[in-house]
């Protein structure tokens, strides 16, 4: 039983990361019509930037938490810039192309980012994660010691999800984003600057992807390719939300995290979680909508 609880927490924190990544994907998709296959790659790159600042630069005389904060800040700033650059240099020019073309462009971005990262950081497997909480700290839940980091991850994931929701619901810009995601033509008729909204959604999406990437570092021996490939799991979570509903996407992420973690109680297999993700994708797509993705007014 205690083992079950432990796996549940781990599953939930993994799920929290999927939820975050999926949120970014859905946000970008709904506002710009681009299904961003490079989302994992973008998060990966920003995470490596953070990692570089954390481990690769001297931090004389700084308290550990300051180092962490600095690293994370660097990663996040980079993420925002990356999102902006992609929007200005690439996606602004293909606004009216069919969705599949835009998606293939993101594959090009994926390849470019992954190889650029590989050039800079080589193909090594890194064992050094960034911890948000002291590594040895634990909480006790029902008498079971659980790594504080896992709890922190869940909290951060939920916090960001709620924060995003609040932003979308309560602010003028959030309204504008929701309008564009419902109908960009109508939104422009209402005076909404669609280009700017698109740029912000890329920046925001990239930011969330970076957070997800940084949070996942305790879980895996991260290298340039495996982070990039988390796109498949993120897509699975996004699809559970139907690429429309943000709350369902978050739930989907947590659900997927649990589904991928529980089997590891009995079966030791690196590849099995990928199979689970694929099965979830297939199940959702085939059961839910006979005609594929929800129509995004383009």
């Amino acid at each position, binding site marked *: 039983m205690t083992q079950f609880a432990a796996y549940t927490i781990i599953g939930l924190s993994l799920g929290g990361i999927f939820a975050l990544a999926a949120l970014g994907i859905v946000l970008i998709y709904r506002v710009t019509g681009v299904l961003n296959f490079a989302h994992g790659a973008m998060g990966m790159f920003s995470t490596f930037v953070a990692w570089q600042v954390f481990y690769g630069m001297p931090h004389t005389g700084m308290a550990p938490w300051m180092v962490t904060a600095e690293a994370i800040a660097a990663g996040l700033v980079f993420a925002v810039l990356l999102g902006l650059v992609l929007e200005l240099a690439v996606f602004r020019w293909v606004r009216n192309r069919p969705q599949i073309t835009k998606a293939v462009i993101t594959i090009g971005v994926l390849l470019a980012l992954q190889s650029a990262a590989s050039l800079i950081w080589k193909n090594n497997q890194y064992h050094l994660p960034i911890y948000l909480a002291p590594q040895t700290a634990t909480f006790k839940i029902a008498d079971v010691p659980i790594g504080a980091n896992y709890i922190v991850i869940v909290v951060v994931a939920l916090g960001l999800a709620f924060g995003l929701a609040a932003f979308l*619901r309560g602010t003028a810009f959030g*309204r504008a984003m929701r*309008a564009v995601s419902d109908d960009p033509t109508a*939104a422009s008729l209402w005076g909404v600057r669609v280009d700017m909204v698109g740029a912000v959604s890329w920046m925001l999406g990239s930011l969330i992807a970076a957070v997800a990437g940084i949070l996942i570092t305790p879980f895996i021996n991260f290298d340039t390719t495996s982070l990039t490939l988390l796109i498949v799991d993120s897509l699975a979570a996004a699809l559970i939300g139907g690429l429309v509903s943000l709350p369902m996407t978050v739930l989907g992420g947590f659900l997927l995290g649990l589904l991928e973690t529980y089997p590891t109680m009995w079966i030791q297999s690196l590849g099995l979680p990928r199979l689970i993700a694929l099965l979830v994708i297939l199940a959702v797509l085939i059961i839910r909508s006979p005609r594929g993705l929800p129509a995004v007014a383009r």
Partner: protein
Amino acid sequence: MTMLRIRNLGVRFGGVVALQDVSLDLNRGEILGLIGPNGAGKTTLFNCISGVIAPNEGTIHFEGRSLRFAPPHERARRGIARTFQNLQLWGSMTVLENLELPIDAIARRNTLSDALGLPFSQYAERAASERARGILHALDLGRHAHRLAADLPAGIQRRVELGRALAMRPKLLLLDEPAAGLDASETEHLAKLLHRVRERFRVSMLLVDHDMSLVMRVCDYIYVLDFGRVLSRGEPSAVRNDQKVIAAYLGEATPETAGEGAEAVVVTAEPRVQRADAVEVARSTGPLLEVKGMAAGYGHLEVIRDINLTVQAGEVVACIGANGAGKTTTLRAISGVIRPRAGRVTFGGADITGSRPEHISRMGLAHVPEGRGLFPRLSVEDTLRLATDSAGTPDRLAAAFEVFPRLKQRRRQAVGTLSGGEQQMVAMARALLTQPRLLMIDEMSQGLAPTIVRQLFQMIDVFREQGTAVLLVEQFVESALAVADRAYIFEHGSIAHEAPAEELRRDRGLISGSYLGSAPDSTEAIEVAANGNGHHRVVDPQLMEILSMRVPAEVKRALEERAEREGRSAGALALELLEEVNHN
């Protein structure tokens, strides 16, 4: 012999009823017409017959066999072919290839044999090619055989689609708006072509179109759909004179439609300002909106050409005309949704041709598009706040809610869940809040019951008072003319006529002619109100035959100018002239 028998067909999409209890019979060798206002369910019916949608209830029998469970390609095999409203040609293939495909799709072909180029395949290729060429020749498309389908102009593409459908040697041909995007002369050719096709290929047809002149000329029998139900049926002349049909198109409340969804819409409006005064004042400052020589379209289709119109500040101008005449495209070209291909648009003195919609909107030109341009998942309150976000006016939400108390009740509800009337209120509220200089509204009354429509039209006066000019596109002619100062009549992508609203209200013949098409074989004596004084004259039917053909725009203008000089109405003048012709 009944070739196609449809009984009690019903189709629902979510909560929306697209078709209800539709029954239809098509006999062998017939050309059957299907008409009705926008949203009446015509394309849905086609989709059911060709197998793209499965109906919720009802049956379709083709040549005695039920079509249920037959997938689209099976129906093609049985002899049902169709063309598409928005042209579904295979653009990367040549015209010849487009026609060859249906010919050999029916036959069984082996992929491996094709790849290897075996004799059987080559023989089948040659046979298909020959037959395709034959059809191309019959349709006068031979020159284009090797051109890519995507590279051709729209009129030719339509013929290619027709040829493709014929290549299948169908027994029944479904034609979905074959005249869309064609001008008057091209439509004329199409009508002749369809008759020739029936003779030569011996195929029965089911035709849907908005172009009444085409439908009335070509069809043997007509069904009229409205709100998903069969409203009327009969021979063309009977249908054209059917009061119910006229009402459905021109928007008068009839016993059938008045009872529907009569919600009590409480709209509190402030007292009216005298209409004449406002117009006087506005006219002195130069046109607010000026459109010169504008042309626009989508892809290969040129939908509007040589559009000239103006709107003065404080005026209410209506654009009326049959569906497909180009009214909506005109508004979209003005507000920036599509780029004009030619011409100039000036607003308040500034050139806005080809500017971005958000820029134009912020200049004070608001466009409420067809379908209202709302955001289904935003709440009412959020939507109104969105309006004030970009218009920069102080928060006047409370005032808007006073005018539309019903919206206040539903402020937290998602707009997509509101009724049609309430959604229109939201769109109007936006205009109240942002106080644009010019408000363009496209089909405000679409899908709404006449009682609500009347009340919404009262809102137009409110806008006029707050200093907003209004450019209105409407199917409901009555109400539009009641509230407008001037009107433009659109036909086939250009403006055929412009007149003060008063004159058009008197001369109804002009408008119903424009909507319901000419009467080549009308033999009844018809009473005509010849001048504004109410003198009636009974006119010789032969004379009416000449009169009721559509008069070209230039001739109309000439008539109007002369009428103005002589101080009479154009209608009376025309009658006089034609009588002289007849007697000479």
